């Protein structure tokens, strides 16, 4: 209880400090939290700004497609490398090497190939989201207790049954963790793509606001997007905890 109070105090204190610090400073650059609600009203009413709902819908679609592709490819590659030990041993170091490269270096090439439309954002979101999923599948396979497999085999379980009845449940919580991380990264990928260069989408709107020095609106958008991402991840965390409690 005490911790909860302290946490709330920190939040209130931070907001208060932000307000106090931002007020006397250049209003173009520094936005006090108190200016955000009015920015919200303006954004919903003013015709200069593009219709928010359309952009939001586009971004969501991009995220959905990127993530679906990431999950499909991630599961496929993860199981390929993880179940066939020989293949995995050879190609995993290559995967690890790719992980050492800052992901954003791929974006200009993607932009060149796919153009400024949704495709490049989807491609980048896919690229970012796919890695954690592959890694989670590999880690999940590794931490299936050998003993449980032995028990199942000793009771006559065939490889198919061992996979569905022992491996998958044992891997469940690790995989959900991977799905969660993959979603977070797919979202980041799409957003980065939109902010770096696009003609539509939430990232584009943020860029647009920034470009026109509509800082309160920009700040509002940042807060809203951040809150949405956090909520999504929070839901993922709850799911992960649930699965962890079930599967052990």
């Amino acid at each position: 209880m005490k911790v909860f109070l302290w946490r709330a105090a920190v939040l209130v204190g931070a907001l208060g400090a932000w307000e106090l610090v931002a007020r006397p400073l250049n209003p173009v650059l520094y936005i006090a939290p108190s200016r955000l609600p009015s920015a919200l009203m303006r954004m919903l009413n003013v015709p200069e700004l593009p219709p928010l709902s359309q952009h939001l819908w586009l971004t969501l679609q991009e995220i959905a497609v990127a993530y679906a592709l990431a999950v499909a490819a991630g599961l496929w590659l993860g199981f390929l490398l993880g179940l066939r030990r020989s293949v995995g041993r050879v190609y995993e170091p290559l995967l690890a090497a790719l992980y050492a490269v800052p992901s954003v270096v791929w974006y200009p090439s993607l932009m060149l190939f796919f153009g400024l439309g949704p495709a490049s954002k989807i491609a980048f979101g896919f690229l970012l989201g796919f890695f954690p999923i592959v890694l989670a599948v590999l880690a999940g396979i590794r931490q299936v207790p050998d003993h449980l497999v032995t028990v199942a085999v000793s009771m006559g379980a065939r490889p198919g049954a061992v996979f569905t009845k022992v491996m998958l449940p044992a891997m469940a919580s690790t995989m959900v963790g991977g799905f969660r991380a993959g979603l977070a990264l797919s979202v980041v990928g799409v957003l980065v793509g939109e902010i770096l260069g696009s003609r539509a989408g939430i990232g584009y709107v943020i860029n647009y606001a920034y470009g026109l020095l509509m800082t309160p609106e920009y700040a509002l958008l940042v807060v809203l997007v951040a809150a949405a991402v956090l909520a999504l991840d929070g839901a993922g965390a709850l799911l992960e905890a649930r699965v962890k409690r079930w599967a052990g």
Partner: protein
Amino acid sequence: MLAWQGATLAALLLVWEAAVRLGVADPLFVPAPSAVLSALGSTLGEALPRLGETLVKTLLGYALAVGLGVTAGLVIGSRRMLHQIAMPYVVALYGVPKILILPWIALIFGLSHSTGVLTAALFAVFPILLMVAAGTRDVDATLITVATSMGATRWQIARKVLLPAIVPSVLAGMRIGVVFAMLGTLLAEMFAGNRGLGFLMQRLAVAFRAPELFAATAIVSALSITVVLFLEHLNRRFGQWR
């Protein structure tokens, strides 16, 4: 094993080259490996000075992140109450896509080097902080009890027990932090800048100079992999008492 990896890469490159030559892939969008190779020389000339700029910004931002992250991680990790209060916020901030803050930084600091440095620091500080905090928390309590029972002051415990004990975590965080720092710098350069490798890559993309772009991508990738491999080597030599 190396043979398999090399063979697969070679095979992929051959297929790629064939695809372009046979007209399956448009060389405007997908340059042939041979074209990339020949562009490498000229690109290096363009890229090297900008690479230097990017590296300097990355290093500065990284140093900032390490200083801040290690200190904060140590402090948060060693005080239970503080850890419980602060951690959810740190994790939440880590979860927010930091790209959202980039326009604001660019607004304040413009096209100067500071934007790149600060973005690099922003991206790198979180993983470092989290790993150091976790490593600090995981320090065997018995060790601290022993030191306390021998009359060690808080400061002495920090220096003689905590610091050596968390070296593996710090190194791990730093290894991850380097890639993030470089990511931040490149991102800042791509978004708002006229200097550095990120900007060069954006410009090459917009100009449809595919072979040069791929060459530049290869150069950055090679650099990054080298840095990470080097850090892992350091870790193996110095951080392996666990």
